[in-house]
């Protein structure tokens, strides 16, 4: 499964407002909840914040990948945002976060969930890719950058 299989412009935001980690997470959850695969937004919120308690999903270099599994979605749902300002995300490397990818999986579908998580975190570990994302001015630009990157990633 590709990232761009689950991500359309509808679920991408550039210049996402918000000053705290909570603001950004809530905004992303609201964005993801516009999907018809989402049956219960509050359950998702619970799962995401619950997972965040176990260990911060700020994996470093200004990127965070909040995720959770719940039975409140019928299929994997994702949302991606570039924030308007740097966010203190309690990341391990203490760097503020600008790029946040939210991934919500189904309880019973662990396999695809883990594959997508690994794929996303692998892509985001590239400095050059992150800076292109930060420079994107619209959701459609973000999507183009993602498509290109996934294409080259597949060839590699």
């Amino acid at each position: 499964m590709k990232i761009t299989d689950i991500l359309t412009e509808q679920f991408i935001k550039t210049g996402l407002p918000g000053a705290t980690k909570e603001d950004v997470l809530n905004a992303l959850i609201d964005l993801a909840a516009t999907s018809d695969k989402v049956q219960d937004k509050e359950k998702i919120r619970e799962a995401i914040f619950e997972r965040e308690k176990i260990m911060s999903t700020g994996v470093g270099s200004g990127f965070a990948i909040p995720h959770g599994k719940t039975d409140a979605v019928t299929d994997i749902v994702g949302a991606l945002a570039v924030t308007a300002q740097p966010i203190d995300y309690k990341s391990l490397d203490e760097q503020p976060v600008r790029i946040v990818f939210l991934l919500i999986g189904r309880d019973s579908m662990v396999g695809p969930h883990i594959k997508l998580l690994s794929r996303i975190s692998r892509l985001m570990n590239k400095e050059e890719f992150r800076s292109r994302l930060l420079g994107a001015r619209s959701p459609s630009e973000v999507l183009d950058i993602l498509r290109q990157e996934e294409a080259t990633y597949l060839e590699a």
Partner: protein
Amino acid sequence: MIGIEYILLAGSVLILISTAIGKLSDNLGVPTLVLFLVVGMLAGSEGPGGIQFDDPGLASSIGIVALVFILFGGGLDTKWQDVRRVLAPAAGLSTFGVLVTALAVGGFAHYFLEVPIEYGILLGSIISSTDAAAVFAVLRSKNVSLKGRLKPLLELESGSNDPTAVFLTVGLLAIIRTPETTLVNLLSLFVVQMGLGGVLGYFMGRAMVVLLNRLRFSYEGIYPVFALAFACLIYASTAVLGGSGFLAVYIAGIVLGNSTFVQRKSLFRFFDGLAWLSQIGMFLALGLQVFPSRLVPVMTIGLLVSGFLMFVARPLSVFITLAPTTFDWREKLFISWVGLRGSVPIILATFPLLAGIPRADLLFNLVFFIVLTSALLQGWSIPLVARLLGLAAPLERKKSHPLEFEPVVGSDTELVDLTVPYHSDVVGRSIVELGLPSNSLIVLIGRGDQYLVPSGGSVLEAGDTILILVNKADLPQVREILSRRKAPDD
């Protein structure tokens, strides 16, 4: 006196027919309860079965016992996590909402059908509660999946509104028979009934959990027997003490269903079977008690009241009660439509028969007719209405994947997915070097598009997703290991 072998023969044949006919419900889209009722009616003295059964007292007793098990089973199946968020609206619907329905129907019967006002409200009270068995059956069937809070709300409402209807019916009968009964008397009685029912149900539910876990029965088969007797004890003792036994068993069921205890799976199975038997037995008995020819004279008035209930009284009650909530008009409309009437009204309709008030049999037939129309029309059309209002969620797709897991009940081990931070000290180290807690295990490593089955020598990379089986108590230690930063000169 008929020999027991004949009673058993008739009973077993009827139940077997009912179990077989349950399959039809999937194909025809008719709620199962209607089919069971029809079997009962056909078996009765006016049908080909020719069984003589006219004993409202027995029918009522069967109904009450059956309802105890249905409510207890319904409670067991109710996930507290789901219902917690709909507690306030559900409580509103099952108390105030029920009252509005009863009064609206009473007013309609009085002003348009020239029924004495107290009889009108008695009729309204009898048909004021939605049916847990019917609603559970429709909502849990394979062809409806609802968005958001609707399902828990409707289930909680239907499970908890029967006590109010029972109370209103008993109260109205008291007023009709002893006119000096005052509203204040009734109101305080209501508070006592609900309060006592709620409190006793909660604590006896807790007690049941503790006892199940402490008492070590030598035979596994004893557990269901114990649970069965305890459920009856909860109903009966609460009722004897003046509380609502129905509310108590429902709440005790919820408490039990959301706790960890031994023999959980087998008890769930047992009560599931028992709830089915109760439903079949109850509807058969109620179907036998009704005489189809006596339904004909009440058809016109029955259709009028039934139509008023479905299209005016229930929506009115839902829209008033849920006005302060965030449910939108479509959701309210849908909630209004899932006002299925079922066994409780029929059981309650035997109360006036037993109380011996005038024209009670007319009332019984009328109620029976109303339940039939509601179950048929609403029960059949709910999936359609959900789709029309845009409230149906896509049906869950069942896929199979290399990994599926469920949380293990009663174990404090969890399977957690963690991402290896880009600058973590563990990057470039092998798993044996990490010093993970002794009883934790990395089950799988996700790297890019690959799954790696780890061995002790596997080296972690930045951005790896690890699926780790870990004791809850050890989670902080695992987090600490993964969060250690690589020294700048490393």
